[in-house]
């Protein structure tokens, strides 16, 4: 991952999004969605906790 000092914050955040999605890891969508939809770290943690637990549970029960 590399940010571009000549680009503004929003464009660099786009780079972050793309880099995470590029991994094609099943958790990448969860992490990107939560990163950009939550207002603070505590809300982010709560969302990650719910989404990751749900994901793991559904994967095991499949």
């Amino acid at each position, binding site marked *: *991952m*590399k*940010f*571009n*000092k000549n*680009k*503004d*914050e*929003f*464009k*660099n*955040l786009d780079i*972050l999004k793309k*880099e*995470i999605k590029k*991994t094609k*890891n099943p*958790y*990448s969508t969860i*992490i990107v969605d*939560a*990163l950009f939809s*939550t207002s*603070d*770290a*505590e809300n*982010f*943690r709560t969302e*990650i*906790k719910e989404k*990751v*637990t749900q*994901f*793991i*549970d559904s*994967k*095991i029960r499949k």
Partner: protein
Amino acid sequence: MVKQFIKSISIEGFRGINNSGAPLLINFQINGVTSIFGENGKGKSSIFEAFLFSILGRILRFDDYHSDIKDKKTIKNLFHSGDGNIKIEFINETNIITDINVNVDNNGLRTISSSSLSDPDEFLSSLCSKLNFLDYRPFEKILLTSSEETGKLFSNLVGFGSFIGIKDKFDKISRTQNINNDFSKTIKENSIRDNNQKISSLKVEIISKLNEIGIDITTFDKKEILKYLKSFLNKQYSLKIKSIKSETQINFDQLIITKIGPVYEENVSKLSTLQEKLKGITLLLKRLNTFNSKFIKRLTKQLEAAYSQISSQNDIVLGKLYDEAISSYDTINSFDKNTCILCNTSNLNVGQSTFYEQINSKIKSYIKFKNKYNSFKQEFLEKINYSGVSEFENLYISESDRILTNLGKANDYLMYNFLEDYKVIDLLSIYSTKAKTEIKNKKETIKELKSQIPPKIADLVDETNIYKLVFTNINHIDKLLSENDYNTKYLFELENWIRFSSKIKDDYENAYNELMDEIASMIDHDTKSFFKEIMGDVGIIPKLKKENKGQKVNILLEKFHSNTNDMKAASLLSESYRNALSLSIYFASALKSRNPGNFIIVDDITSSFDSGHQLFLLDLIKRRVAKNSLNRNGKQIIFLTHDGLLRKALNEANGQRNWLHYELNYNTDVTSLRPFSSTDLKNIIIRKIHNNDYFSSDLRIYYESVLWEIIEQLNLEIPYSLINSHKDKMVNNLIQAIGEIIEMKKTCRKVKASLLLPSKADFKAYIQQLGNNLSHWSTASTSSLSTATLLHIVSDIDNLKQRFQYNCTCPKGAGWVYYRTLKTPNHKGCTCNI
């Protein structure tokens, strides 16, 4: 990202600006600096706060106020009827104008609307951060905080504020404790370990029980064991089960009853009850044994320690009276000398102590006794319950003989020797013997009952019970295995998540660090240069050092005179140097900021500097921070100040390229802009003279403004130190200097001979006449000056001014204008004969 600039602001009914029906309107210089000078109470900070409130939705200094002193009702001007209103026009690089209309109600609540935007809130929230606004408080923070906080401020300054939030988010989910709490990682790991232990012991129990009935197995093999079970059930109960699954239910008790018939059912039931009771009394005996002589010894010591606090039993009687008094008179919180009628009865002396002192000492001893006694009592009661003494007495001892239970319930203090008096050790020994007898009796009854059941039947019951236990254990093992299976898969998946999230976190942090490293080194260069411009080449060179990991940024001095070891800047530098460094970092960072809001609004940032350094700072802002033709990436600067030292320099700068200056005027609830034109100033002063509300300084200001105007308009080379002087005779010195430069120019033939400029003698007269007046103004009370006298002085100043002007009679009709220069007085296009 399209850069946004502030085009104008209009303020009515906000903070100190009432302006009912006549909003204060300020147009700003887009490329360059707009400076606004306002003496205290003229509304300068209200302008700053109007920007803050409109754009950020809050007044930053209120954040630091305690709720006791914060009153949002003061946000709207208290004397303004109706809502307050602020209108800001933004203009972007492509000249598109965006308007924001902010209403503030009596409770200080903000409502935003816009005729050009559907979502003005979104526009404002993405426009800029609080770091676009700088007043005297926050800019030093970057220097006086932890390196972690400096790093965060630094990220904010360069417009990467949300990167801090993202780092915080990653940090939050990667903390081991949070992972454990959120995903129950440790609980699940422990559960797997515990379940494995349980499974092992269940298997051992199964093997041991099957061995008891002659099945010779040494290892747990579920299939084989179930084969035995199926075969047993088939053989003994003709029950054919094809396959046994986890949900299979077998009612072993019912099988026994059906098989042995109703005759033995009663005995079997009794047997079962007796076996349960035997189990109970055996356990009770075990618990009773914990109330042993060792514990009694400890209790005795505790009780002795409590009683050692008091000298006699009478102290307890007194203490109880004290307790009674305290509970009866709830207003008495302590044994207060002033509340005791015996306190001052010194004639009741007993030995060396007064009666009060004696009682007080005893009460203190009693309180200590009571505390220690309560600890003893608590332990005693807990033991009575835990050891099962109370349960035993309830079951086997008649109510009147339940000694220990009754002692535990006693309200009065137990005597220090009560354990001996009641022979508690003997009592417990009796209880133990009694329990053992009960156990013996029950065992005998069980034996008797068993003997009444034929051996074959008894064996069958035993064997069936063993298979029942085996079956229950197998089911339990299956359940534990299934739990372990889920948890193992869960932990495996969780590990995938942890690995992935920590990789993303590490990648992000590395990239973020690298980015900040690059920006820090760019900013470091500008910071050094800016600092040097403000403070001069004083042998001090600052340095921004980004730490390799984390977001910490250290602000150091790489050179402090002869010292070239890195030193911590905040500790070493004095206030003005610290401020110069903070401002250098702030400006250097702001220039790298990628916020759309391409403006910086500063309020009173120069207070800690002397006049020379203030001018260096102004010069830095103008040339290197503000947007201009040579500094295209510069910012729009709105510079608010109350600093009188700067006032003249700002007036000087007014009208220069990329610089617009206003002064604030305040009169009966109206704040207005005071233009620099001396004619406008004269009109204001004449109005004030007629209204009899002028200040003695008003005429001096007018006189000064005329002299500055002459110097500025005619480009007279007057030393700045003279203009910026604050000596009493400054105006005299100034006019003398004007006279001298004109004489010099005349000598050098740089003055057109026909100009009616004042002569040497005229200047002498002005100095005398106006100088005398000036002395008089500064000493006389305003009432001693008549309107006619004051108007006469204004007229004298105007006469002086007109000696540097000509009355232009060209068709366009310019009127009285200053000479363009002393050598070529006509303005472009003017055909007047001078």
